[in-house]
């Protein structure tokens, strides 16, 4: 049964996932070309100096892409379910409704994680080619909240989609999401979340269960 759910989820999001991967790869190519252009045509020592002491980010194109990825995956996964209340069918399968919905979320989460890890790996190889390992550490710490924002918005957007009560509840969930996600983007320069990323990670993990409440309300049919 779970295999079947997985297959159904895959059918829904495969094109979206492919589009996201292509977007990430384009950003990667752009960044790599920019770096190699600078090394070939100008003085990389001045560039290093800018990166280290003026805190300019050569990978800033990545900033909002994970967020977009989270929203897109969530949209393709849950929008078809709530239009014409198809989710009701899924919830009437001979399985515990919580494990059905958690499986759906787990599938989306895994897909997102796989895409993110793939792109982090690509950037890692590129950074190690151009810079010493200290830059890689800084890249990982600096982009961690952005990728975390991507996962968090996926969880939050899913519960927003499933939430049955449009005006008050959904609007409110959207507000909370914006408020929390903007905390993750409130950074200047690099390594900003070095001392606190684990706290935000913990909060985001907890947020991932918010879909359970929306599902419970959906099943109850509060409208």
């Amino acid at each position: 049964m779970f295999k079947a759910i997985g297959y159904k989820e895959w059918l829904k999001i495969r094109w979206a996932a492919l589009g996201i991967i292509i977007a990430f790869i384009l950003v990667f190519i752009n960044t790599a070309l920019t770096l190699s252009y600078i090394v070939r045509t100008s003085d990389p020592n001045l560039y290093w100096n800018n990166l280290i002491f003026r805190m300019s980010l050569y990978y800033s194109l990545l900033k909002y892409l994970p967020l977009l990825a989270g929203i897109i995956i969530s949209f393709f996964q849950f929008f078809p379910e709530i239009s014409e209340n198809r989710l009701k069918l899924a919830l009437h399968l001979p399985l515990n409704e919580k494990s059905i919905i958690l499986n759906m979320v787990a599938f989306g989460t895994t897909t997102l994680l796989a895409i993110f890890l793939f792109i982090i790996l690509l950037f890692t190889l590129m950074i190690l080619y151009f810079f010493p390992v200290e830059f890689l550490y800084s890249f990982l710490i600096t982009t961690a909240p952005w990728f975390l924002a991507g996962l968090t918005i996926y969880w939050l957007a899913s519960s927003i989609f499933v939430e049955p009560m449009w005006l008050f509840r959904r609007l409110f969930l959207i507000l909370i999401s914006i408020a929390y996600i903007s905390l993750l983007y409130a950074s200047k320069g690099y390594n900003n979340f070095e001392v606190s990323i684990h706290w935000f990670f913990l909060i985001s993990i907890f947020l991932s269960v918010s879909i359970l409440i929306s599902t419970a309300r959906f099943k109850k049919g509060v409208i």
Partner: protein
Amino acid sequence: MLLKLSRIVLIFIVILIASVYLPHFYWMAASPRIHKPNIYYSPVIKKFLTFKYDNNPNVFCTASDGKTYSRKGSDTLLPFLNYRLLAAKSSMPDSIDDIEIILEDVRRNNFLLRTRPYQLDLPQIPVYPLFESKPERLQLEIPECFFRITKDKMDFINTKTNKQNKQLTEIFTKSLVKAGFSFPSKNIFGNPTTRKAFDEGYFVIDNNNFVYHIKMLKGKPFCVKTGIPNDIRIKKIIIKENSLKEFYGHMITKDDRVFFILYDQYKLQELPNEGYDSSRDHVFMVGNLLYRTISFISTNSVTSTVVNRQYKIVDTLKKTWKDKYQLTPGIISSYIFPFTIMTQDRSSYFTNIFIKHISFKAIYLHIFLLIFTIIYYIKRKKSMIKNWLDLIFVLLFGIYGFISILLFQREDIE
């Protein structure tokens, strides 16, 4: 059970978000402008001058004996600070305290150093450029190789190839080992900018907490163990090359002491640190031909101490004023918000979860909201016993708890 737990988790998250944004918007709407005084020591009348915005155009500053001065009148009281203006108007005094005033001396001895508390806690990619200290063409240039200090060497990396520069790595590592350096380094402090007259390289704390001075002289290493004792717990060394060549910079320790590191055999000159809290205060140092003033500025007070050139204390002044939390909007906020969560703080450049401004005065609002909730629950015929946790949330978190229990009600999950 899982549902119950997830509701509680969500309530906590709403409390967190509310305690960040509600006070934030409150202060956006209610923040008053606060005029902080600037304090300088007048070497002419030997008194502190307080410069504070005032509606009276005739009062530009007030001396510590209460006498007031206009803007024009105050210029001559600070001849060293205003030497350009006074020299242009030919009203620079010929001598002060029997010391002849030579403009070049005045210029050379003047300095202003400001250290903000977050500068003591900055993120850093630990890779640094080592300048040639005696460049042939006199101008400092960013070198092609940057260095880092690893477990067993001072590693130079060519920025063009991202490969190690073996020659530099070898001679610098050898020189460091010869000076007694114990790898790896615990901290590296320097002033890597080309906008200065000359370069003094880096002060590096080694694994045994000793401080080494490293620079490059005509391509050769200069590595010296400074005599700075290794039991001083250094928070930050701020290097600032100054043509006076009296001190390399100042050093702030973890127990909030302030020192100059002198050119004279790296001796430490302790500065007065009365009232200093390094996580809160700006350090503002003004030096001139005759005196040095060190001020610690918090959000609601400033403590200034003047020393002469032998570092003997001449005079001290403390001024306080009300910050926004002590003015009416702040008092009102203390009755509304039990605490405020901030992700930024003046003590650090890093994002973190800072719990600030805890106020027990908000308990009145908590009790009011609690009664309101109970009445509301009675009207909606909700059981108090089943909803006891909601009441606890309101009592403990006040307005934040109240908002979150309204949004995530218990019936939703039943």
